[in-house]
């Protein structure tokens, strides 16, 4: 993985000094509160319901053991012994004190980490596929591109005061695990159909929030070496023309929507035509220098299948289950990638204790070439495990309470912090996730249901990605009571789609029952081999609406209607 050189090291240290200076100038009155706010946000520091929150960037989701140990140490010393992994490959501390923040930043810099641009109206932490460098369907590892964008976007002089936040995601695979169509810019590495040259498909104007939109392709093929100049053109058009009169209309998706994709493309290309590419783009040498850090680890030459693992799986059904559910095929024979779920039944999605981080750091160091990944579904990944070692890894994960075999299943729920932490929330999301997970706790039942991404947000801002959940849950507030809207049919992959509402909102205690009713419709409707989202696509929304309505009308649902104010 990437290692800082003297320039990166110095840059991050100077950024900490800059933040320290800013805090001092806030305290002595040089900076007003309004002026300090965007400065602290650009360094990941939010003021939340009960305390400050610090968001740490995990660029393109890659970490090593030393970094995770440091994150654990910070959780122990400056937080309440845990931290939270988010849907954008960031990590959040919920209880740091303002006075400690510069020291935390120093500790992060010690392990080549930072909080640069994890919030604010600037280019945010760049995200990627958690199986980068592992997946068989990959044209090229997307992380060198991610690292180049991380460097280029850090303290960009021109694009630090954008109309609104700006999120970039990159994938190098055919199957999109980075949700590139719901980002401000999504990049897909591909090979040119005729020449075989490597480049990018560029998608702009996706996003969730209160106006969810699927991004539009604005370039079918951008030669790889032209990336930074082209990004500069897109950013300049957005910076100059994005709306600033209304923050809810300020994202680039609104500009693309209001000007129309053709006109937007015309403006970007007109700007691009005026740029002097070679003076902006990364030198080829530099691109190669970065890419070299992401060379595959020194794998052993092994047969495709492991007799050791096969025998262990036959002997231990729990191990067998774990590998079946959380294993991901590796392009290197004899290896496997393992998803490590941060969604134990009844737990807080994405939370990890300091002790678990330390245990996991040891596991990654010993059995995965000192590398681990963070996924956008708030889980972790051990990217390169020898299949022969899987039984030992499984035992170590079990000992750390990290062996939940539910990756991608109905209990692997994405949930934002909601009303338990967030100042913008209109409803709780964590307890809803916990309620659903308990309802579906039975492993055999989960397996029978199969892959079913449920995503929950505690307000219209959609941090929990509810629009693109196969089942989406949006917590609102209605006459002082939490009320939940249920959508079905959302998809964050290359088949990106936004979910549609099934009917009126329901009370918190009815949510698990409603999800059961929806799942029952699926089990009844599905044809052989169909996963949930495929059944929705084929059968349409109607059966699900009917099942949902029937649930509301039934006895359990009656309370919902009674609570519904007359309109």
């Amino acid at each position, binding site marked *: 993985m990437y290692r800082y*050189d003297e*320039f*990166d090291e*110095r*840059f991050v240290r*100077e*950024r900490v*000094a*800059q933040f320290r*200076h*800013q805090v001092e*100038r806030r305290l002595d*009155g*040089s*900076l*007003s509160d309004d*002026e300090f706010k*965007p*400065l602290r946000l650009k360094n990941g520091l939010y003021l939340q319901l009960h305390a400050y929150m610090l968001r740490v960037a995990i660029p393109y989701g890659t970490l090593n053991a030393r970094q995770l140990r440091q994150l654990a140490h910070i959780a122990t010393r400056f937080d309440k012994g845990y931290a939270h992994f988010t849907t954008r490959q960031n990590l959040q501390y919920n209880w740091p004190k303002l006075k400690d923040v510069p020291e935390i930043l120093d500790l992060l810099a010690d392990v080549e980490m930072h909080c640069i641009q994890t919030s604010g*109206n600037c280019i945010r932490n760049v995200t990627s596929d958690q199986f980068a460098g592992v997946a068989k369907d990959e044209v090229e590892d997307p992380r060198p591109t991610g690292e180049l964008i991380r*460097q*280029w976007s*850090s*303290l*960009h*002089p*021109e*694009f*630090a*005061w*954008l109309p609104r936040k700006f999120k970039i995601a990159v994938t190098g695979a055919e199957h999109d695990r980075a949700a590139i169509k719901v980002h401000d810019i999504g990049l897909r590495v591909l090979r040119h159909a005729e020449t075989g040259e490597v480049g990018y498909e560029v998608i702009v104007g996706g996003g969730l929030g209160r106006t969810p939109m699927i991004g539009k392709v604005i370039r079918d093929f951008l030669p790889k070496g032209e990336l*930074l100049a082209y990004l*500069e053109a897109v950013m*300049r058009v957005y*910076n*100059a023309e994005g709306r*600033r009169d209304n923050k809810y209309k300020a994202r680039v998706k609104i500009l693309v929507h209001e000007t129309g994709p053709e006109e937007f493309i015309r403006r970007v290309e007109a700007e691009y035509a*005026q740029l*002097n590419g070679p*003076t*902006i*783009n*990364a*030198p080829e*040498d*530099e691109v190669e*220098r970065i890419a070299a850090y992401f060379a595959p680890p020194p794998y052993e030459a092994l047969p495709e299948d492991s007799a050791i693992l096969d025998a262990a799986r036959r002997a231990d059904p729990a191990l067998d289950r774990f590998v079946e559910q959380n294993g991901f095929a590796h392009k290197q024979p004899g290896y496997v990638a393992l998803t490590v779920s941060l969604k134990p039944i009844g737990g807080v999605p994405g939370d990890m204790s300091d002790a678990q981080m330390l245990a996991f750091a040891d596991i990654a160091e010993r059995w995965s070439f000192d590398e681990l990944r963070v996924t956008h579904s708030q889980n972790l990944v051990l990217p390169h495990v020898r299949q022969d070692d899987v039984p030992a890894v499984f035992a170590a994960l079990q000992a750390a309470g990290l062996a939940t075999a539910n990756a991608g299943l109905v209990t692997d729920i994405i949930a934002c912090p909601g009303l338990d932490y967030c100042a913008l929330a209109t409803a709780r999301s964590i307890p809803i996730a916990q309620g659903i997970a308990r309802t579906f706790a039975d492993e055999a039942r989960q397996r029978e249901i199969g892959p079913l991404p449920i995503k929950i947000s505690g307000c219209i801002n959609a941090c929990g990605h509810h629009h693109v959940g196969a089942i989406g849950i949006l917590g609102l507030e209605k006459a002082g009571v939490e009320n939940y809207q249920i959508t079905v049919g959302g998809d964050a992959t290359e088949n990106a789609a936004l979910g549609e509402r099934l009917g009126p909102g329901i009370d918190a205690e009815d949510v698990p029952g409603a999800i059961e009713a929806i799942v029952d419709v699926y089990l009844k409707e599905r044809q052989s081999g169909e996963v949930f989202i495929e059944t929705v696509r084929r059968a349409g929304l109607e059966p699900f609406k009917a099942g949902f309505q029937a649930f509301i009308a039934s006895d359990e649902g009656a309370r919902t209607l009674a609570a519904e104010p007359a309109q």
Partner: protein
Amino acid sequence: MTLITRTGEKPEDYRRVDAVEDLRLDERAVLVPLAFASAALAARPAASVALSVPNDTPVEALQPYLAAAPLIAVEFPSFSDGRGLSLAKRLRRAGFAGTLRASGPLIADQFAEALACGFDEVELPETMANRQPVQQWMEAKDIVTSHYQSGYGEDRSILQKRLAARKG
């Protein structure tokens, strides 16, 4: 108001004129809103007419003045509105070689950004200058000593420095 350049405070050479009848009053060069540009140029030599322009002005609207105007002041309605930075970049690209001024309630933390995008100076309202004296601007601009982006500022980017170090 206070004028700050990369080397420190500097006296104002221009008289802001907001009414056409004041254009001829004295020999000092004037700084006029874009709307008065033709009136001012009819009344005075081009080298003594600087322009003050909103941050959403298209570069094409300024094209006729770029060769002769000694100074263009880009108006920043608030510090958090970054459009002026892109306008500066575009003006430099269009060949403007005079003085570029950022005019408005910027904060010291933006000084390095403004300079890197092509501005030469910042014109601060007095209330801001009182809270953030010139010394803070000088300190703030030098805290982060290098940048990754090629094509910004006068020194080389980190990417270019790395390349030079390897070739060196």
